[in-house]
């Protein structure tokens, strides 16, 4: 019975007492870093330590959307590089990630908002991305079921359309990177939380786990919602807050929606899976949380906005509902790079924007760890930018993480 001939996706090696590089966090970003360390730099003396299990965290809890429609060059550059990599990864990993570039539609609800979207579209074009502003019949043709005619509190004025945006099977991303890294000889340990980061004379020398101590030259922290707790093991305070983000899946129906659509008066994003389910997500619950338990106010909010776009959704039932702990920084953008302790680097603060950037972060962090120098694409995302006044604030929302 069952799939007896299916081998385990990752090996279960004996833990050695020493590795060159330790990656704390076996999420998409950590595993992508492991993969690119092996592939691009031939470095396989690496241990990935995951406190829980592969595919149990935010990598498999998001709404699977990938896109690169960001205004600021730093934000756009990294995510657009990721889009290019997503297109290559099913082949490279020999794992079907089901990348479907069905197009991403970002709805504007006033002429002023559409003007601002046009600025963003132009910035993206300057960066080499293909993007259009759609209005009227062109938008209706792109999203035939979108309700553009009913009297609405927030009518649709138009949309930014990015054809390369779309969806990817998110758990396959975790498994695909894990399998490839494992095949390359990198050791991945599940249920292995780091309990201590040992530092001597401002230099990392080892980490402690329940299975013993691992001596290492460098440590890379990539643990999303647990960033503050893990960084505190090294005595560091981070400008990061953990928030709860919810997602929902309806019962499956026939194909009715090709693109990914985002409603901006409030926040509600929706796509239809290949199986026919609608996947919905929204803004964070709006306050610090590690509970992985959402508030009803946000559920109502996301669904009400989805109905504004697609009234027929009112007849569907929700099958599943879940949430994850996302870490968001004081300017809503990630912190990536070296920390003020020698041999210690971090990737955190992605909020609910991290999944789409997974391969780009892995690619760039692998380069940093291999060469001990920060590559250009991640240079702006420094840990010390808050002290220096060099925030990357796409939303202009200031130091209130739950507003981003």
């Amino acid at each position, binding site marked *: 019975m069952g799939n007896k001939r299916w081998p385990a996706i990752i090996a279960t090696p004996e833990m050695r007492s020493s590795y060159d590089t330790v990656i704390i966090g076996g999420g998409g970003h950590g595993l992508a870093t492991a993969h690119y360390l092996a592939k691009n730099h031939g470095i396989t003396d690496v241990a990935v330590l995951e406190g829980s299990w592969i595919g149990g965290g935010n990598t498999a809890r998001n709404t699977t959307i990938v896109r690169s429609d960001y205004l600021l060059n730093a934000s756009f550059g990294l995510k657009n590089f990721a889009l290019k990599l997503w297109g290559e990864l099913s082949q490279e990993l020999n794992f079907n990630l089901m990348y479907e570039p069905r197009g991403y539609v970002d709805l504007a609800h006033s002429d002023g908002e559409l003007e601002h979207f046009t600025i963003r579209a132009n910035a993206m074009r300057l960066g080499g991305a293909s993007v259009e502003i759609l209005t009227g019949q062109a938008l209706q043709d792109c999203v035939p079921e979108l309700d553009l005619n009913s009297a609405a509190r927030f009518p649709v004025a138009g949309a930014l359309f990015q054809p390369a945006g779309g969806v990817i099977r998110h758990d396959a991303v975790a498994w695909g990177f894990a399998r490839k890294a494992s095949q390359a000889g990198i050791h991945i340990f599940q249920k292995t939380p780091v309990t201590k980061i040992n530092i001597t004379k401002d230099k990392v020398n080892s980490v402690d786990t329940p299975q013993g101590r691992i001596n290492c030259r460098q440590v890379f922290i990539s643990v999303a919602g647990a960033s503050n707790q893990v960084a505190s093991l090294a005595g560091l*305070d981070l400008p990061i*807050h953990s928030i709860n983000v919810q997602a929902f899946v309806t019962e499956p129906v026939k194909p009715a929606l090709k693109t990914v659509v985002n409603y901006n008066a409030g926040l509600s994003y929706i796509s239809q899976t290949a199986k026919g389910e609608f996947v919905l997500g929204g803004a964070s619950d709006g306050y610090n949380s590690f509970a992985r338990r959402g508030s009803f106010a946000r559920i109502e909010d996301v669904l009400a906005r989805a109905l504004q776009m697609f009234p027929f959704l009112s007849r569907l039932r929700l099958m599943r509902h879940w949430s994850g702990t996302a870490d968001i920084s004081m300017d809503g953008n990630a912190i990536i790079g070296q920390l003020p302790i020698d041999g210690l680097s971090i990737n955190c603060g992605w909020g609910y924007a991290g999944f789409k950037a997974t391969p780009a972060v892995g690619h760039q962090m692998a380069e940093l760890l291999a060469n001990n120098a920060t590559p250009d694409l991640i240079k702006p995302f420094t840990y010390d930018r808050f002290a220096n006044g060099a925030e990357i604030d796409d939303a202009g929302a200031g130091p*209130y993480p739950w507003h981003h």
Partner: protein
Amino acid sequence: MLLITCPHCGPRDESEFSYGGARRIWPDHDANLDQTETAMQDWHQTLYLSSTPSNPSNPSGPLTEIWYHGGGCECWVEIIRNTKDHSISNRQKGHAS
């Protein structure tokens, strides 16, 4: 859904409030930022990090935080909420500002 007890209005739904984040203790407002490096560091610490070691800004556990009761008395309310399970274990008096 949180039920926040406002010292002026009684137990009220979370939707009446806006979140203000961790309770912060602000540095000296009159400090000359141009002349003292420590004043800059203090403001950075308070604004972006944990304003006091006793109340880290993003704990997995009890957090002393403030909420603005815009849908009620229009005062800031200080509570202690456990971020692991959203239980509100302690309620203190509201404070102005």
